[in-house]
């Protein structure tokens, strides 16, 4: 339960960190909050030759309103997102989600860039990136590129980042919604979710003009359920809508079974959570 030996560098610029990654030739790992990486080091499930600690790089931790987007620096801690007034106002679904991300002491260290790069299929921030249609800005030796969240998550614990690329910031567009809901179920509060659903709606009178549905814990990556959205967009709003959403969501996910819950249970749970989330969203005044 102790890490194998490694070299350690703590560069002060993103450029120097990328150089160190390139020099490590595939044997280097970025260390951000360490809340996912250090357990893996302790178990010796990963054995990098070099750890490149980005915590000493200035200017990677910020939450900024830029026009119709919120830009968040990769090194921004979960706790800062949880407690930010700007996030509470502009990204209320993220605000609601943050208290479900692990526990206080882990949120004090864990970062948004680390969570997205780690890409746990049951993590909140990757799902929120999909839900909001976020853009992930990655920097490599040849400069920056912008990656849509829907292209970023490739598989469980796998992203499309190149080995020498670093996530530097994430842009979250503000949603024009008039109701939203966030529902998560885990075995113990703060554990990784068994299933989780986020819903946002926009109403035009009695018609559902638009909706967004994202899920996690029920697949190898977080999911934006676009087919479900298409089925309900434009539908007349009535009391049966949450139940319809529940059925559509359950039918559209194919979860895995593990020690925490069976696939059937997770599929059922995703539907129940979707129903609750939409009920909450519809209860908000349009």
């Amino acid at each position, binding site marked *: 339960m102790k890490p194998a030996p490694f070299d*350690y560098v703590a560069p002060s610029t993103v450029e120097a960190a990328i150089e160190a990654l390139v020099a490590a030739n595939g044997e280097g790992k970025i260390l951000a909050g360490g*809340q996912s990486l*250090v357990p893996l080091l*302790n178990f010796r499930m990963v054995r990098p030759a070099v750890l490149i600690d980005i915590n000493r790089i200035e200017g990677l931790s910020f939450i900024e309103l830029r026009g119709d987007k919120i830009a968040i620096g990769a090194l921004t801690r979960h706790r800062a997102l949880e407690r930010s007034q700007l996030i509470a106002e502009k990204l209320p679904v993220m605000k609601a989600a943050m208290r479900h991300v692990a526990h206080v002491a882990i949120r*004090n260290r864990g970062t948004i860039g680390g969570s997205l790069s780690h890409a746990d299929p049951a993590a909140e921030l990757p799902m929120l990136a999909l839900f909001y249609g976020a853009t992930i800005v990655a920097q490599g030796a040849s400069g920056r590129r912008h990656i849509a969240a829907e292209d970023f998550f490739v598989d469980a614990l796998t992203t499309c980042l190149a080995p020498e690329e670093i996530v530097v910031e994430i842009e979250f567009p503000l949603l024009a919604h008039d109701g939203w809901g966030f529902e998560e179920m885990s075995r113990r509060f703060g554990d990784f979710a068994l299933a989780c659903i986020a819903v946002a709606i926009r109403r035009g009178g009695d018609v559902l003009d638009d909706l967004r549905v994202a899920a996690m814990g029920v697949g190898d990556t977080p999911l934006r359920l676009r087919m479900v959205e298409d089925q309900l967009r434009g539908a007349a709003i009535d009391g049966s809508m949450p139940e319809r959403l529940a059925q559509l969501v359950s039918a559209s996910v194919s979860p895995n079974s593990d020690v925490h819950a069976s696939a059937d249970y997770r599929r059922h749970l995703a539907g129940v959570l979707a129903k609750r989330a939409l009920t909450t969203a519809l209860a908000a005044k349009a």
Partner: protein
Amino acid sequence: MATIRVTVNGERYEEVAVEPRLLLSDFLRDTLGLTGTHVGCEHGVCGACTVLLDGDSIRSCLTLAVQADGCEIVTVEGLGTPDALNGLQTAFREHHGLQCGFCTPGMLMTGEDLLRTYPLASDEEIREGLSGNLCRCTGYQNIVAAVRSAAAQRREKAAS
């Protein structure tokens, strides 16, 4: 080897040599001999190793000692002394918030962060705040009661 400089419980340690892979928990226990910080799981789940780093509660098993260079750390030894327990420690004793004591250092350090962040901690905030700390003995009720009473005391003190 790297060298670090840290302040632990108000005491300065200059130019201490550490291997990069040394966990902060092992640095505190083995290098500095501060064995009040307990080690349970070494993967972030149990909370026994929680300390304050620059004022924030963190898992010392998920932080490298080299990362603490230039930082200020408070461990359970920094809260009070056996003859003069601090308010939260006293509340744990009065409310039977511990039995074997293994989880207690982590509970106290987490509680300190909670009280500082939520001076008016509600029961829900206390339970949520302690959710990352496992106790195999007490059943948690008395721990929540202890933190609740320490919160009330701080509130009274602030009002007077």
